[in-house]
């Protein structure tokens, strides 16, 4: 693998919170790691998504009302999108755009937007916007993310991406974002990959490993499981 091809999904629609900087940051990270970076804009709703060419799909935050239109626009390509995710393809959805990968979005006007259901997630539009800073510890590797969030909807999920160290996260219950295989949803803005270059680097390295057909060894998976259970045990102990 000598090239990273980033699919920038609907840039003129999902255009909020300066997250276009995350596209720049990913391209920059790839180049720093010795890869050529190519950004493919999937600009219009009738554009066919070139899944075979894309190393990752990047969905950035957009206006809540556009999500229903995006969901409909993706319907003809839904089967291929599902397959891409099930095959371990990487999709990063930042802010509101992550909600379309959940089960449903409940709007304040009583309407519902049905999501793809790839994430066990439901979203309920908030009466007022919650904007604050955000500090997160990722469940998978204890990496920390820092940034801010502009929360338009409260989110309930059984598969959080991480837990909040500061901030509201999904709905103030300590959970932040969601993850299924390599489909990642986070509320963390920054731009995400500008403020958290270690996260961008991890993502690109994993893409290279995946391309080379390398998977974590059994011992590594056991170590991860050990980490999780030991941490639970430590947290349950009384402090000396």
């Amino acid at each position, binding site marked *: 693998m000598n090239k990273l091809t980033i699919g920038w999904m609907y840039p003129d629609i999902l255009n909020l919170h300066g997250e276009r900087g995350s596209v720049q940051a990913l391209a920059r990270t790839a180049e720093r790691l010795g890869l050529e970076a190519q950004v493919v804009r999937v600009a219009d709703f009738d554009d066919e998504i070139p899944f075979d060419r894309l190393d990752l799909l990047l969905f950035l935050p957009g206006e809540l009302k556009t999500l229903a239109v*995006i969901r409909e626009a993706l319907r003809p390509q839904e089967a291929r999108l599902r397959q891409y995710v099930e095959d371990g393809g990487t999709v990063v959805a930042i802010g509101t755009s992550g909600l379309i990968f959940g089960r449903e979005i409940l709007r304040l006007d009583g309407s519902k937007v049905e999501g793809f259901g790839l994430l066990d997630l439901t979203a309920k539009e908030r009466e007022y916007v919650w904007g604050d800073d955000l500090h997160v510890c990722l469940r998978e590797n204890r990496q920390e993310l820092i940034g801010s969030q502009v929360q338009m909807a409260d989110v309930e999920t059984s598969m959080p991406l991480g837990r909040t160290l500061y901030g509201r996260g999904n709905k103030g219950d300590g959970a932040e974002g969601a993850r299924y295989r390599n489909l990642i949803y986070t509320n963390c803005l920054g731009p995400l990959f500008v403020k958290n270059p270690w996260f961008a680097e991890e993502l690109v390295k994993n893409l290279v490993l995946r391309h080379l057909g390398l998977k974590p060894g059994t011992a590594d998976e056991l170590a991860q499981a050990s980490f999780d259970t030991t941490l639970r045990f430590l947290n349950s102990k009384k402090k000396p």
Partner: protein
Amino acid sequence: MKFILILWFCKLLAMLVNLIDRRRGTNYSGQMALRLMPGFVKGFKGIDFDKVVFITGTNGKSTTTNMVRNTLVSAGRTVACNVEGANMMAGVATVLIKNSTLGGRLNKEFLVLEVDERSLPGIRKVLPGCRMGITNLEKDQDQRNGDPDLIYSKFEAAIGPDMTLYLNNEEPRSSALAEKAGRAVWFSVAENARRFAWHDDYALTLPCPRCSHPIRFSRYNLAGIGPFRCTHCSHASQPEPQVRLTEVDFEAGTFRCGERQYKVSYTDPFYLYNFALVLAVGKDLGLTDEELDAAFRGFVNPVSHDQVYHWRGKEIRYLQGKQENPEALQSELDVIARDPRRKAVAVGMYKVTDFEPHYAGSFYFFDCDFAAIAQGNVAACVAFTETICYDLAARMIYAGVPEDRVTALDTEEPGPVLELLEKTDAPVLYILTNTKHFRQINDYILSHGGTRDE
């Protein structure tokens, strides 16, 4: 009777507040009146709602409101106006308290009000004015406003078929509101020498407010403003707007509208749209070209904060921008980029501490195009203010400013910033901050041997 008693009390209060602290005089008496009687504004009489002009939008509200007021006064009309910018319900109530008789009757012919976007539905409910100019509707204060559609929906709720809207023909969001109003008057600026262009490869537009499909621009007069069309529905700039500024000559300070040439003191591109909006309102209210021209020639913007200093052999150009407002910040960046001279640039944007929770979000830097500065003749870039400086410095590097020319200073003290700028070989220093910190920097320059052009 309750209304009259509160009015008298608040008139007295307004006089006392003006004697003690004029800065609180724009709001305090109105606040008190609303506390005593929430529906207070509805009690005023003698208001001709056809002569109530609201001015709202993301950017340019205060300047345009001042211009409309100045134009009407210059033409001999009497006007009540919140010129100091107290643009929520309490500010409106204060204007009415100060411009009414003891019986609660408005004693001016026109009521020209700058109105905060979020306050618009509530104000229109108690004061059903029939005319509204919208400067533009763009990304702003995401921490509070979330996405621009939230403000768009507030506008939709406030606009009725009894209204005439004055709409920016080149701004896709606000122009879509025409379908909610009884009548729309379009203002426009023709292609000119200071058109905006994206300098990076990551340019983007916006979703159509009607159908959510992408909007395409044929060119930009400002970031996000230019002739446009939706790729899906019929939403597009009008081919023949009623008011169109043409033949803009930035050096001479002139433009043409119809048969008449106007001479003005302010020619930055965003001012052109302000003048265009004032022409749309003024012509629609029956002012003559001569009256409009005379008003424009004498117009001095009381809310302009840009200053020029001379300090230790260098020229300092101090610009004040709004933070969390990409288009306003972009306009200031464009001013810097247009200056061909060798320059050093210091930008200071701050944590938001106006309300809880305080906030260090700085993503709006990436909604702006800093590349024009990077490609200009820049000796050094300094990013300052606590916490935010590192994000801002990173933004400059992403824009292409060489790393060795970027410095992050984690301070809000003007001294270290100015000392650093002074050491560069640039004869011109640009300082860009938000409006709140003007006094601190102004005082430092003047107390360290600087002089300010008046």
